[in-house]
């Protein structure tokens, strides 16, 4: 093997090694940041109005996009589901299909993606701009820790809001499914609700959906506050941090969803 080839392979191995160690170091840094946020949580909760305010900004102000999206997703799901189920003469199973799809998967995942786009990006931009305009430095110089005053309330605001938003997404999705399936297509309302009641269980279906949305909420909120806090204090730095929040959050939600689904639902209804 020529020296050039060996050098080329060594170069790419070094780059690969550098990238891997870089990712591991970054994960360690994020984990340390999470510990710091959790450490400052009692101080943040002592002024609970700060967290309530963040629940309002992250949760209440996201309601319109979440509810509208849930409604339309449920309606589409109902239309598509009906067309498929009809081929097998199982169109009365539409209620259970819509409900399970929403409660187990689409509710937590789509609400998480919308939450990352709407609230996550806003949190990153807000903290990043506070850093750029020296508001965080001003707080530190006033002997007020920004982790307790700014970061922890936003983190917990997201963690608390997300399961509620996912639940509302699913509820409105089911309502959308009902409108299309029962009101437009004409499936019997009793069959729609009865099948749903019989086929959807609190455990594992609803509970696992709630667990998923909690994990997604924690992941998105952590990514959003971390990216904002670590943003370069320039206009371009805040812009790229905001973009990173949406991209990383979305990929993290999809990856976590797969991992959790494997553990939660594999063989859950077997036997």
């Amino acid at each position, binding site marked *: 093997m020529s020296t050039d080839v060996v050098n080329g392979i060594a170069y790419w191995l070094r780059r690969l090694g550098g990238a891997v160690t870089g990712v591991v170091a970054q994960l360690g840094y994020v984990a340390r940041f999470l510990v710091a946020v959790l450490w400052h949580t009692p101080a943040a909760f002592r002024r609970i109005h700060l967290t309530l305010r963040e629940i309002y900004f992250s949760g209440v102000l996201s309601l319109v996009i979440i509810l509208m999206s849930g409604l339309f997703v449920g309606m589409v799901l109902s239309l598509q589901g009906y067309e498929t189920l009809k081929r097998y003469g199982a169109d009365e199973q539409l209620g259970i299909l819509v409900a399970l799809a929403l409660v187990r998967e689409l509710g937590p995942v789509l609400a998480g993606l919308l939450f990352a786009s709407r609230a996550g990006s806003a949190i990153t931009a807000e903290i990043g*701009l*506070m850093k750029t*305009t*020296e*508001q965080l*430095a*001003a707080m*530190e*110089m*006033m*002997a*007020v*820790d920004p982790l307790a*005053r700014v970061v922890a309330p936003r983190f917990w605001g997201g963690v608390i809001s997300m399961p509620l938003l996912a639940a509302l997404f699913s509820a409105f999705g089911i309502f959308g499914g009902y409108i299309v399936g029962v009101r437009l297509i004409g499936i019997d309302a009793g069959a729609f609700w009865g099948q749903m009641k019989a086929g959807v269980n609190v455990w594992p279906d609803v509970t696992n959906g709630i667990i998923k949305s909690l994990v997604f909420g924690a992941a998105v909120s952590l990514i959003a506050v971390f990216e904002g806090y670590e943003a370069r204090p320039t206009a371009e730095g805040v812009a790229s941090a905001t973009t990173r929040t949406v991209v990383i959050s979305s990929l993290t939600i999809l990856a976590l969803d797969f991992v959790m689904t494997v553990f939660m639902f594999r063989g859950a209804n077997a036997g």
Partner: protein
Amino acid sequence: MSPPAKPTPSRAAEPIAAWRVDPEAVAVELVDVSFSYDVRPVLKGITMTIPRGKIVAIMGGSGCGKTTILRLIGGQLRPQSGQVRVGGQSVPDLGPEALYDLRRKYGVLFQFGALFTDMSVFENIAFPMREHTELPEELIRDLVLMKLQAVGLRGAAHLMPAELSGGMARRVALARAIALDPMLVLYDEPFAGLDPISLGVVGQLIRRLNDALSITSILVTHDVYESLKIVDYLYFVSEGRIVASGTPGEVRASADPFVRQFVNGAPDGPVPFHYPAPSYREELFADVD
């Protein structure tokens, strides 16, 4: 042709006789402080003394290390060598709790105010009171109005920071900096970007508040005229070193080339107009040869 020479300190930084400070009266002291960002040295052996109750200006061109000095005093940075003492305490040696305790005695005016944009003027000034005291709401209200009255903006209490002009924002930030009657106020470029009237107002406020509240003030600025009107002493910093110092009278009378260049705003002098570069002639005619 050799590249233009780097500026050389015109004289060593020796505190002059008029500024011999009683050790008991020292509020802030930097002794042989050096600091580098990564490998780029910013401060190279800075020594300065700031007595209680005085206003001291640290002056120099952009990027000379002035703001770094403020950050060292505030404990946001740690020097690579040397000592930074505030009220007798070594700032770099303080743990997080002790550093926050010390910072409660500080007031800081940032270059562009750094007001909290989601709070009104009133809430901005009430912020340190709410965070660090258990004062009843009525008392906080009265104190905030008194601070705003001191800077002439009591009528603007209900406004949001986005509704303020640059000069007003700076005055609100000044009111917030003195909210808890600090022992030391750090001003980072308090005159930057202000119109002449606002500039005079802010300058006079700094002097008046310093005297009325018996605080110690450190101004980092490059506005030499406004500083000469209000400060007790000036340090000139260039290339990370103190190159001159003196009282306003001494600065006005100084024949020091650096001080003259700074006071007169001359484009060339000990601080060269040109960034170090190869010979102009050689670079222009490189292709001809």
